[in-house]
């Protein structure tokens, strides 16, 4: 039974009709549920509940609430919150210092508290769906150099690198109406610091549907959870948990009911019995006597007051069901739309002669999307759910040629799918050598060449996002102690989720600039990450860098070839990484079969997986066990 929760709207009669059709089973057992959204009074209640708990704990906090598409609905700061004694006039928190070596990257830097809490709230909202509820603690567990963190000889977390997505410089994620009047409430919105691993960010739910997220910081440290085997008493998390009262995720879909490779994910170390206050007694009056709504440069204006969230899946949310039937008439995907309802990235041809045609783009998207409808989800409950992801195709210059999203796919995958497509494209193409020849990046080129010889990165080897990830960890092979760090990674001593090598280095300048903008109002970053580092590709209409939303280093992206020519990239994100990998891999492969014109993957012997070094070879693609629902077929990707 296809899920049809988020495509239902109150105002869009045709979408409702669609939903009625595809939700026939649900219709038979009762009236269709409506797409939920946060009301301004909900936001007030959430803030008030957090404020009450924070005051009971004598832990003045900064709190943000966002909707599912990243619109900031309120940012509230209690008197005295996040006021370090040595910066008496600055409201700052510190990115946690490196626990095992010198600070590099973002470790130890001060950032504004409001940016931290928006990031935490967005993390809760974006990683979650109506089939899975992930918190910032979940994020922490899956972005570290071992999974589980601290376990020896265990490979890195499955979403290693996802913290550097939804970046403030992303060209995919939109900006707040505060700085871009045309953006209105259209999602997905950018995030100040990507995604957060600092406990104290949760998704919010109404009637089982993800409607947003809440983020709290009171402890002054924006960090991560490096020991997941204990049970923390995190002030941030307890306050955030109090905030979710009445809006909490259904227990059956929380991370602690979902496993990745047999390992249960963490949702919250805080439990309701840790809450000192009675959230039901929280009042806005009390909250406003202890703190105020605060404006955040580029994200929120306190004069807006408490805003309501959008219904996800409506035009106003920036994502609405496809009306064309081009991908599925039974379960149409969501498409990103503009304010007028026009599709933001309709399948179109590339601008480079001989590049991808509109038909090819549409075929890749359709094949991949069709696969998701029968594929087994890895991070969604109930068991037996379909894969829910975003699939994006980019041109050889990185421009987006089309993107489709499964109903109820977690929002983070929209940006990440594009990142993965572009990352595979860049690393497989002729431009990466120039990038790594820049003075700040030569160490990566040197390290790559020490692994693979001088001819690495010359545009002849096909890199997938997974293979890039294999080479971008702090150990090689991934997870094994006392091994060299991967060419694109950072040494163990300096590697943290805030400093992970090439990925972070490429957008460090953007993040620092944005952090200054948040704190002091200096000019913001443009909607083009890596500008000045990564070149624009040929025939780019916008002159955007190929990697305009940053590098991504976990599986689910491939170069698109016709014959031996690299003509684009395809990326998938939003479900288990093996599901992402399979959807992108087979989507492209099957499209090539359909079209019969040579479209497909790089020939196997030109894949980087053909070249072993240091006792290991990168993996080009790795498809999941029991990939399809209602089928025991295995090894679906072998020989392709």
């Amino acid at each position, binding site marked *: 039974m296809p899920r049809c929760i988020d495509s239902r709207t109150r105002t869009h009669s045709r979408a409702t009709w669609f939903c009625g059709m595809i939700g026939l089973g649900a219709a038979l057992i009762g009236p269709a549920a409506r797409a939920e959204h946060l009301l301004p009074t909900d936001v007030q209640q959430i803030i008030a509940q957090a404020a009450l708990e924070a005051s009971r704990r004598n832990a003045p906090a900064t709190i943000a609430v966002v909707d599912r598409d990243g619109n900031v609905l309120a940012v509230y700061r209690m008197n005295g919150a996040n006021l370090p004694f040595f910066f008496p006039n600055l409201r700052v928190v510190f990115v946690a210092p490196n626990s095992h070596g010198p600070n590099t990257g973002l470790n130890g830097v001060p950032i504004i508290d409001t940016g931290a809490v928006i990031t935490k709230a967005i993390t809760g909202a974006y990683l979650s769906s109506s089939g899975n509820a992930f918190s910032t603690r979940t994020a922490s567990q899956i972005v570290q150099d071992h999974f*589980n963190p601290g*376990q*020896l*000889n*265990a*490979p890195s977390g499955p979403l290693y690198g996802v913290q550097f997505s939804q970046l403030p410089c992303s060209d995919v994620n939109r900006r707040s109406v505060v700085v871009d009047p045309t953006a209105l409430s259209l999602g997905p919105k950018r995030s100040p610091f990507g995604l957060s691993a600092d406990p104290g960010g949760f998704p919010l739910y109404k009637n089982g549907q993800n409607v947003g997220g809440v983020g709290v910081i009171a402890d002054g440290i924006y960090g991560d959870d490096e020991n997941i*085997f204990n049970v923390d008493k995190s002030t941030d998390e307890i306050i955030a948990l109090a905030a979710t009262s009445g809006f909490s995720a259904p227990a059956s879909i929380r991370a*602690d*009911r*979902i*496993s*990745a*490779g*047999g*390992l*249960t994910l*963490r949702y919250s170390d805080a439990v309701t019995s840790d809450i000192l206050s009675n959230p039901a007694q929280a009042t806005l009056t009390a909250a406003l006597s202890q703190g105020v709504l605060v404006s955040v440069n580029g994200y929120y204006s306190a004069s807006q007051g408490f805003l309501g969230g959008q219904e996800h899946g409506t035009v106003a949310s920036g994502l609405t069901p496809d009306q064309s039937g081009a991908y599925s008439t039974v379960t149409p995907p969501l498409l990103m739309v503009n304010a007028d309802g026009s599709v933001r990235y309709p399948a179109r041809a590339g601008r480079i002669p001989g590049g991808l045609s509109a038909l090819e783009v549409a075929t890749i998207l359709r094949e991949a999307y069709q696969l998701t409808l029968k594929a*087994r*989800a*890895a991070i969604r409950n*109930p*068991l*037996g759910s379909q894969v829910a992801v975003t699939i994006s195709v980019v041109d050889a210059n990185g421009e987006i040629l089309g993107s489709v999203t499964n109903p109820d796919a977690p929002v983070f995958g929209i940006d990440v799918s594009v990142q993965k497509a572009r990352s595979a494209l860049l690393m497989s193409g002729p431009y990466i050598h120039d990038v790594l020849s820049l003075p700040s990046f030569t160490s990566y080129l040197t390290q790559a060449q020490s692994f693979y010889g001088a001819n690495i990165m010359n545009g002849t080897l096909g890199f997938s996002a997974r293979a890039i990830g*294999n080479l971008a960890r702090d150990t090689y*092979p*991934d*997870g*094994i102690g006392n*091994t060299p760090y991967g060419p694109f990674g950072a040494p163990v001593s300096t590697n943290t989720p805030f400093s992970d090598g090439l990925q972070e280095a490429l957008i460090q300048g953007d993040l620092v600039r944005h952090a200054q903008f948040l704190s002091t109002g200096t000019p913001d970053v443009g909607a083009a990450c890596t500008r000045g580092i990564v070149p624009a590709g040929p025939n780019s209409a916008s002159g955007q860098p190929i990697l305009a939303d940053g590098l991504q280093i976990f599986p689910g992206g491939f170069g698109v070839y016709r014959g031996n020519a690299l003509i684009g990239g395809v990326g998938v994100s939003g479900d*288990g990484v*093996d599901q992402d990998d399979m959807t992108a*891999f087979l989507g492209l492969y099957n499209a090539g079969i359909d079209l019969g014109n040579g479209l497909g993957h790089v020939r*196997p*012997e030109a*894949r980087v*997986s*053909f070249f*072993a070094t240091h*006792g*290991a*070879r*990168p*993996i*080009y*693609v*790795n*498809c*999941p*066990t*029991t990939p399809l*629902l209602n089928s*025991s*077929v*295995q*090894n*679906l*990707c*072998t*020989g*392709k």
Partner: protein
Amino acid sequence: MSLRLRSALLTLGVLLAPTVASAQEEFQRPGTTPAAPEPAPVDNGAIAAPSPSLTYEILPLPDRNRIIETLGVKDNPLNPYAQSTLKGDRPVFDDWFVTLEVLSDTLVEPRSFPVPSGAVTTARPGENDKFGKPDQLVVNETLLPSLSITKGDTTFMPPEFEFRFTPAINYNYAHVEELGLLRADPSKGTNRNDTFIGIQEAFLDYHLRNVSDRFDFDSIRVGIQPINLDFRGFLFQDDQLAARLFGNRANNRFQYNLEFIQRVEKDTNSGLNDLSQPLRRDYTAAANLFVQDLPVEGMTTEFSVVHNWNREQAFYYDKNGFLVRPAAIGDERPHKYNVTYFGLNNDGHFGRVNLSSSAYYVIGNDSHNTFSQGKANIRAYFAAAEPSIDFDWIRVRASALYASGDHDPYGKTETGFDAIQENPQIAGADTSYWIRQAIPLIGGGGVNLSSRNGVLPSLRSSGDEGQSNFINPGLTLFGVGTDLDILPELRVSFNANHLWFNDTTVLNVLRQQPGVHDDIGWDLSSAVTYRPFDTQNVVLRLSGAMLVPGQGFKDLYISEPTTRVYYSVLTNIILKY
């Protein structure tokens, strides 16, 4: 008259006058009053009985242990089956005996089971999916020299004292087709050579006292010793560090054991005891009572209570770098548990029907259910039976086993049965594919569906090194088999077992995969055992088994090509001195 002298005279009497062997029956048995013998028929031609007052001519004789030498049966230290002082047939001094043994166990084991292709690298390019090539080869050679020093007459009464020491010298080799299987570090390749010396026996056995004229006794044995808490190794069979008080009563009608066991860490690749590691924080206290001829003559019944408490809350990695405690499953938080097993076991026969059966009920608590992440109770049960009947040289067997499965991993009670350290002798034992091979639950955590030499699908990290796990799918097994004693030296066995999970909920959860079927499949095996000298000194065994996957196995593992079966071949040569 001391018993020894009496027995010596008896031996002499038998030798000199075989026709009076029936005189044995006239010995008085303790606690009975023999009937008065029939008066001998009068034969007037017979020689008169010697006069009671006549002085005997005393004949010096060698002790009974060496008297046989007068018949030409010489000490032969080279032939392990002949009379030998080195084999404890004769005392070396007074009544001190020495027993030397050397056992060589050679195993060549080609096998296949589903394996992952590698999470971070692969052995070959183009391995695009999770399942790799299943074929493997294991070669294992273990040399077990054993020295036993015993004091006391060993024929009629328990020895007064025994010291035994058995080290094991092992070499093992494994070849697989995929990386990351033999060692956590995939760059270490697909072959592994390893050697290890372990201590399998090192104990003192002291005979505390006799408690009856029939030599019912109490003894104590301390050290590394063979442990088996039931007839078939369902609960705990291993060579482990233990203090054991044991003995018997009522003419051996009752036997009892009181044991305390603290487990020794195992060497990962040889399975031998590794005393270089700290002892495991896993303790077992066991009390059992064996009653002969209960409920009928020929049937022995064992009642047992076994308490196992585990306090292993530190992370422990095996020799190959894999996490074994806590198991890499669920939330992976360390936990401790207390469990008490109540057991009822039988072994013997009802008339012509042999029967060995076992039943356990276990209760206890787990400090941390790795799924629900809270405290949990443990309630699980197990039952197994293996009836057989002999028709001349043909034995026909039936096997049945049920181990309860867990219904709800997130519940407050864990209901999957697990043992402490099983080594089950049922349904073909290690001839069987399922019992012999440890099948990794690929994509569902760092655990095996079942352990090596184990029948329970208990999702442990390792049968030897892991903790018990009471959140498992449980098992139902029905099988038939036959042992054909074709020649005195040659036995051929066949087994056909069908296996099912009892509840696959936990598998569904771990694999994030709904509806895993309960049918594991058919386990078909055959073994040929050849003992060319009719002794245990040379035993050759060749067995082959295959698993024909059922739908549940297909749901979990690769089933293409559809004809795929998994195999386990054991070539085993045992040479014993």
